[in-house]
């Protein structure tokens, strides 16, 4: 085996292939045995593939089974349930957090709605107050105008009464003046002053002038 490897040393790949080809190794088996004795430094040389040394199989299989059983027991009893519980805890925590976040979101939405409602209410109230004030002012204004109108009409009525009085007295005064003037004129012209005749004459004249 070693001589085989020495021959093949110039190419690495060939070397490994040569080592794996077992039937070649078998032909060199005798060589390897003698080399094993020669090489005192090595307790055991590779006689062919160590993997094919059936003498060690029992040992390997025994210890492998022991290892696998121990590993299986530790994993299935301790490690895997623990990891499973950690993962499910985390899943639960994440789900819980998400639900809490959803709840907070809902609360925020409600708060926003309440705020909007309060704002709208305040705005409505303000508008109502404004409208009320406007109505009050309007009422006051209307009352003042009505009062002023009443005063104006009262004064107008009073003035008309006075004008009518003045006008009525003016007719009477004018008749008296006309009677006096006519009587005086008639007297000056040497006529006979007959009150009744003068009265009708003046009335006839005044009918046309006054009306």
């Amino acid at each position, binding site marked *: 085996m070693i001589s085989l490897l020495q021959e093949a040393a110039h190419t690495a790949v060939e*070397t490994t292939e040569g080592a794996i080809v077992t039937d070649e190794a078998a032909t060199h088996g005798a060589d390897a045995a003698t080399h094993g004795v020669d090489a005192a430094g090595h307790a055991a*040389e590779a006689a062919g593939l*160590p993997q094919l040394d059936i003498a060690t199989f029992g040992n390997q*299989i025994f210890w492998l089974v022991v290892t696998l059983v121990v590993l299986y027991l530790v994993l299935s009893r301790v490690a895997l349930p623990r990891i499973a519980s*950690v993962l499910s805890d985390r899943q639960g925590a994440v789900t819980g957090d998400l639900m809490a976040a959803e709840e907070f979101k809902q609360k925020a939405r409600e708060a926003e709605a309440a705020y909007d409602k309060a704002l709208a209410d305040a705005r409505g109230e303000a508008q109502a107050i404004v409208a009320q004030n406007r109505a009050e002012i309007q009422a006051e204004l209307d009352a003042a105008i009505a009062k002023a109108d009443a005063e104006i009409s009262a004064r107008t009525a009073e003035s008309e009464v006075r004008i009518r009085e003045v006008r009525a007295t003016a007719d009477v005064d004018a008749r008296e003046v006309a009677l006096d003037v006519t009587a005086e004129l008639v007297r000056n012209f040497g006529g006979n002053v007959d009150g009744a005749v003068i009265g009708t004459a003046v009335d006839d004249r005044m009918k046309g002038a006054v009306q």
Partner: protein
Amino acid sequence: MATEATGGGLEFHPMDQFIVKPLFGAGDVHWYTPTNVTLWLALTALAAIAVLVLGTRGRAIVPNRAQSMAEMAYGLVHKMIEDISGKDGLRYFPYVMTLFMFVVFANLLGLLPLAFTVTSHIAVTGVLAMAVFLGVTAIGFIKNGSKFLDLFWVRSAPLAVRPILAVIEVISYFVRPLSLSIRLAGNMIAGHAVIKVFAGFAAIAAVAPVAILAVVGMYAFEVLVAFVQAYVFTILTCVYLKDALHPSH
């Protein structure tokens, strides 16, 4: 390191890293002897337990790094089973998780310098694969009874072709543990051996820089392979589990 330059010639021992030897003293390897296999199997189990048990000690709602790793591994395998095998596959989750954690940590620890890679041994991967194969077959018969044989009798195919398909299906079914174990062990053997060979070339001053760069590159690649192989092993387990739970095509 199994390589040394003697008398101008190079000596390569890329396979010495796979030798099974007793931990204490020399002598024969009996079935009960604590060997380097025992040590690295124990370290693999301890590493898996450290991440999954110690890492989740805090049970924190907001995880730290170790707990995140544990939860990621848990989520990865859990989702894989759920997606591939279906909800009823989750009953076997601890079993699949054990396989995944074991393989991934065995692969990764094997990449440490001077480490022994337990998953590079066909005896180890063979037992893992047979455990999957026998377990899945047992589940198939327990869950479905004789209907489990429908897996081999393709009803969607024409009747004349069915016997031929049945033979092919049976062969492919029994090749499963072989391919499962050899895929994993082969990947581990090849990668580690190539790294060792490149490391051997580093003894020659002229090519040492190239060899060291190659080792670094291969190492990075092997880290990827370690994950991918564990993933592939687990995903195939899930596929076989699906076949066992729902055998009809």
